[in-house]
């Protein structure tokens, strides 16, 4: 890659179009610059194992050409490297690093690379003329001997941000207790795109998908990371301490320190936080841990599942979101007390008449609503009213004695052993074989979903049912041969059921589908390209049933007996677990506003997890004239 691209902090796409002639000149220099082709074999004095490790920790990837074998580091900023062509030449980079290491004046530079130092004193000790240098700055900020534990943090999926729909993972460093202050700012390792919040809409999505952003590792504060997720974004955070030994922990600390200066190219699907955090752990364990999935990309949840399956997790802690915490407390109240809380939120019940527990919960309910406002467009009047009420509640609580510890709401509730958690949730990729039974003729469906999170999947504990399918292809084999039945680019249903009183705003359910697809399994020849959007509301009935109603419209590419180019859509449904089964019942009405045609479709779907990776599925549907039953077997692809 030309270095003028690699040096950029802002992403490649932003570079294009700036300083055009400089770029042309730089490109020509790059083309004609003499490049010493490195050999594939290790340099003299370096063992094969040592050489492979050097290549790995500097992210060199082989690039085969017709004449010679060359390398290119995945690190895109040339100033990370010490040799002028260190990005492409691992041997030259190694020689330069060793020269610096043997130079008494090179200590400061060498100390920028603590993992390289450990590598050098492991594999090349006999070539080094000085003992390992002391690195006070590194020791002060990251002394590995004081990190007693490294955990993986998984923040649950977040539909408000497309980049976080599948969740996010990062590492947490737990230092000795009395060192908390020193490590306050550096107790977690995050990897993400440097979007800088400037791009919006299509440009943001395009850059995220196509490598338009650079990305880097950042050391942040683990407490505030968790706080941001649980209190502001209303997401659960799951914490998994890792079974890493001292050497492995040391590598993570050292390597993350040197990588603070490195930049990579960000691809939302194929080179994201999941890849880079997993890569860090793969390097730390010398490949004993492997996160590679069978799908074309890696999602954060897959890394958690791979760690669980390969025995790297010691325990599991759920840091419950503020919203879930408030919901749990609110649902335990008798109906009369729930009404009282609603009145208090509406300002029709005196705050000072509430009990200590009620005040505590009311504050939580207000903070939950305030966080929702902070994440969306603020409505000034309502927000002010909410903050004034919150102020009154805080003052009332402060005027009373502190709550006994036993009466404060629990922050990390115990997770039932049988509950579905990120470590045991369904794998995102799934292959399904299904047989359709219909009066006229049956057929066989073969479906591959690259990223799957379905209303029929058992949701992770604390999460409402939701659907997020990103890439699904279904082929149909029938009497007339094989054909493409459907291709789904995106199919999202975010139900957001609202069991909490909402006085200052309303949580909406919404759906978006971009696909080539038929309206039902009954119709044989009505697949059409479509964009469908829906908006509505959902509610939780009892403990486990979620009901929803969505209203929207669909634009079609093709007019058939069952489709018009423009259709209004009403969808109502209910999701409910029935013992081990997950059930979904829906009724859908499609209305062509111009022709006045109305089509109805009622469907019942059941999913039964036969074992950890296999699901039996049934879908029965009827449109008032005809019906079909589809029986299938779904195989999760980890």
């Amino acid at each position: 890659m030309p270095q003028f691209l690699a040096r950029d902090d802002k992403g490649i796409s932003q570079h294009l179009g700036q300083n055009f002639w400089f770029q042309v000149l730089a490109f020509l220099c790059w083309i004609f610059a003499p490049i010493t082709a490195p050999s594939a074999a290790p340099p003299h004095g370096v063992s094969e194992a040592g050489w492979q490790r050097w290549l790995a920790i500097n992210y060199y990837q082989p690039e085969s050409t017709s004449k010679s074998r060359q390398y290119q580091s995945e690190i895109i900023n040339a100033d990370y490297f010490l040799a002028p062509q260190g990005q492409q030449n691992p041997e030259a980079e190694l020689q330069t690093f060793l020269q610096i290491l043997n130079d008494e004046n090179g200590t400061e530079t060498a100390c920028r690379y603590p993992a390289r130092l450990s590598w050098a004193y492991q594999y090349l000790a006999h070539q080094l003329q000085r003992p390992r240098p002391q690195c006070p700055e590194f020791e002060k900020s990251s002394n590995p001997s004081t990190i007693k534990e490294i955990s993986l943090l998984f923040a649950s999926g977040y539909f408000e941000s497309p980049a976080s729909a599948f969740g996010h993972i990062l590492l947490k460093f737990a230092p000795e207790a009395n060192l908390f202050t020193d490590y306050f700012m550096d107790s977690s390792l995050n990897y993400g795109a440097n979007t800088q919040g400037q791009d919006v809409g299509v440009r943001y999505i395009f850059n995220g998908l196509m490598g338009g952003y650079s990305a880097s590792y950042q050391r942040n504060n683990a407490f505030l990371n968790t706080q941001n997720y649980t209190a502001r974004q209303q997401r659960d955070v799951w914490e998994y301490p890792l079974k890493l030994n001292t050497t492995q922990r040391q590598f993570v600390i050292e390597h993350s320190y040197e990588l603070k200066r490195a930049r990579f190219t960000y691809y939302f699907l194929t080179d994201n936080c999941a890849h880079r955090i997993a890569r860090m752990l793969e390097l730390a364990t010398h490949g004993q841990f492997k996160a590679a999935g069978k799908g074309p990309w890696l999602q954060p949840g897959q890394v958690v599942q791979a760690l669980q399956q390969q025995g790297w997790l010691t325990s599991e802690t759920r840091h419950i979101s503020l919203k879930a915490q408030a919901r749990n407390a609110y649902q335990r109240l008798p109906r009369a007390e729930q009404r009282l809380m609603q009145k208090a939120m509406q300002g029709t019940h005196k705050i000072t008449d509430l009990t200590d527990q009620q005040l505590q919960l009311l504050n939580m309910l207000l903070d939950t609503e305030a966080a929702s406002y902070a994440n969306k467009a603020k409505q000034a009047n309502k927000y002010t009213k909410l903050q004034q009420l919150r102020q009154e509640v805080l003052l009332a609580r402060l005027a009373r004695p502190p709550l006994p510890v036993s009466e404060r709401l629990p922050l990390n509730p115990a997770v039932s052993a049988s509950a579905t958690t990120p470590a045991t949730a369904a794998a995102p990729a799934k292959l399904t074989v299904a047989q359709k039974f219909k009066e006229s003729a049956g057929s066989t469906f073969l479906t591959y979903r690259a990223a799957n999170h379905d209303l029929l999947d058992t949701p992770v504990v604390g999460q409402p049912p939701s659907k997020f399918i990103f890439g699904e292809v279904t082929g149909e084999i029938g009497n007339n041969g094989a054909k493409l039945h459907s291709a789904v680019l995106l199919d999202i249903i975010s139900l957001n059921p609202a069991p909490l009183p909402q006085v200052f705003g309303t949580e909406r359910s919404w759906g978006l589908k971009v696909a080539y697809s038929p309206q039902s399994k009954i119709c044989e020849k009505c697949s059409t390209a479509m964009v469908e959007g829906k908006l509505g509301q959902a509610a939780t009935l009892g403990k486990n049933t979620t009901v929803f109603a969505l209203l929207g419209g669909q634009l079609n590419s093709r007019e058939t007996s069952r489709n018009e180019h423009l259709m209004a859509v009403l969808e109502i449904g209910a999701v409910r677990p029935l013992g081990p089964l997950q059930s979904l019942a829906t009724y859908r009405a499609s209305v062509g506003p111009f022709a006045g045609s109305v089509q109805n479709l009622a469907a019942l779907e059941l999913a039964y997890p036969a074992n950890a990776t296999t699901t039996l599925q049934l879908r029965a549907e009827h449109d008032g004239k005809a019906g079909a039953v589809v029986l299938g077997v779904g195989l999760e692809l980890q």
Partner: protein
Amino acid sequence: MKKFILAVALTAMPVASSFAQQGTGPNPYVECGIGGALFPTVAWAAVTSNAIWDLGTTALSSAMSSPEMCNAKRVNTATLIIQSLESLEADVANGGGATTQALASTMGCQGQEAQLVSAMRTTMPAAIGAAGYATASQQDRANAVYNSVKSAAATAGLSCATAL
């Protein structure tokens, strides 16, 4: 009885206390450039978890560039307060929790959390009850609470009050 206690508590607050007055004095959010960097002007960008939201690193850079005014403890404490303001307020109101624990550790008050929280329960009503607090910006509210924390640590005679 509860009404009486509340009435006494409210009466005990400085009558002339206003939010503007709470905001006077040293302001680490302005001096050390913490607030603006942590809360971007593009609202949704602040909640994009996969983007690098500049927790910590910006504050540390500021601290290093101005060590006299923005020592690490001061910056860390101010950062914790603005980033967890609502949780901190709730924890103090209830008598303690994870956020007050983190605050005590950040200030170097390990083992003195109970005294710190107890003192904050005395100083916080004046900050939170000041006119205009409910409608003030996150940064201004954080500054009021920061000063209240500082005052609480000093009032309680905690050694960790130094250098705040």
